[in-house]
């Protein structure tokens, strides 16, 4: 459940939103946020997390270390 967006760095450009395969990203108060429960780290969808690959600001979509890493259903 692990990617999050650092709100203070997000420019709200919207690049990540349509790319998320789980529709986990939405805009809230001038910044985009990732709904942790929906994030699958793009496992099984793509080789790399789409939000990270598309974000124009380095180190803004980052792993949320306060949560356990996503486990693909066995």
């Amino acid at each position, binding site marked *: 459940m692990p990617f999050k967006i650092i709100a203070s760095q997000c*420019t*709200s*450009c*919207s*690049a990540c939103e*349509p*790319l998320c395969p789980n529709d986990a990203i939405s805009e809230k108060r001038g910044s985009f946020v990732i709904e942790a429960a929906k994030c699958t780290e793009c496992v099984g969808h*793509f*080789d*790399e997390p*789409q939000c990270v*690959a*598309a974000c*124009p600001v380095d180190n803004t979509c980052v792993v949320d270390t306060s949560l356990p890493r996503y486990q693909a259903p066995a």
Partner: protein
Amino acid sequence: MNAVVGRGKYVKAAVDGGKMKPAAEYKGCRASANTGQASCGSQAGPGDLPIEIWEKVKNHPCYSEEAHHHYARMHVAVAPACNIQCNYCNRKYDCANESRPGVVSEKLTPEQALRKVLAVATTIPQMTVLGIAGPGDPLANPAKTFKTFELVAKAAPDIKLCLSTNGLALPDHIDTIAGSKIDHVTITINMVDPEIGAKIYPWIFFNHKRYTGIDAARILTDRQLQGLEMLSERGILCKVNSVMIPNINDDHLVEVNKAVKSRGAFLHNIMPLISAPEHGTVFGLNGQRGPTAWELKALQDACEGEIKMMRHCRQCRADAVGLLGEDRSAEFTTDQLMKMDVQYDLEMRKGYQDGVEDERAAKVAAAQKELTEFAGEMSAITLLVAVATKGSGLINEHFGHAKEFQVYELSTSGAKFVGHRRVDVYCQGGYGEEDRLYAIMGGIHDCHAVFVSKIGGCPKSNLIKAGIEPVDQYAHEFIEKSAIAWFKSYLDKVKRGEIQHEQRGDAAIRQGSRISAA
């Protein structure tokens, strides 16, 4: 002005003998072998372009230099996302005081954009073109972009639609573009060689992956050229923009010019790099300089040939509104739009534009008449003059109020628009600013004269000292006609030995690119 380091071949070409001439090895792309026509930039009148193209561009300020004196355009910022990163770009979404692509005051939804278009169309009836240029890439936001076009096409059918893209996603959307009312597309192509591209583009996002370095540049150039070919096949007019980055792609842009010409682009717009540290771009921060006025002109002249060169681009913001060179976007913020009563009146717009057409015809006729008096006159002298104008093809701006000067090259064959120089307004609160005057003079240093509607005593004497003749006797007259008349008297004085004709030096292209408070 930045220090000129590592002078490239364009500088040399420009400085040799103090004359503007392209380097000899580029003769190949100057002569118009197939058409046999004397090309004069994108100043095309109908005689200079196939008639069907002229019909499409004659009222499009970004596609016709002649039209840009009379018609306005607007951009709506509905496309904030981008699929590539350029080293000269840093997008800002809430910025009121920088003027460059990638900057806007506020992002809009397609519905807000429509409201803004209708409000501007009513307030500025000479606004004929709506473009979507970002601030990101329109085709990285296809849903918002095409929704906006669809709404506007329905509500304001007379407005031309165009979009400006980096080309990466262009092949994917070509059928949607062809199926909509979009009849003009601009692609920004800065290289056709991935080695060079890697110095301009740190990464692209393509096919669900981020690519970097040469791989990224190779994919980008392939997609751009493929997109351009597809547009040409479908008969959609395509302009190519290129950013001139000294010592990175300046020489290479001649190759780019050939590549886009052979694939059917009809206009090539080479723009100077804007790179001030405060913009926060990679090039701005690492001290990459932009070209000087001479370097830019030498490259444009070297590429001049069958494909027209655009020299009147103002590198405007992704939410610009108004004539090129003026920006009225501050009048149309969302708050203000809410207060406006928006009624789309096609008849009123048509009536107004008929008046504009009469004005254009009168301007052309006046210049022709002046030119016939030149017939038979031969002189090798060519020189540049600067003009302060508010539009309509007239010398109608006070020296102290000018936000920019338009530059014309004069010769016995007439007056040709060759560029513009943005400046900080000299008069602030009724007083002239001394240091601004020197900056303005640096910006038009290569001009022999400056045409104004009015000018105060202090700047007048300073200009004369700097060897730039202030000319106010043609106030509120047509630009070309006045410039030709002045040039004729200049040549007469040279002939009579009253004055000695001298070449002038280079001029700086302003990097600050901030919007001055009006």
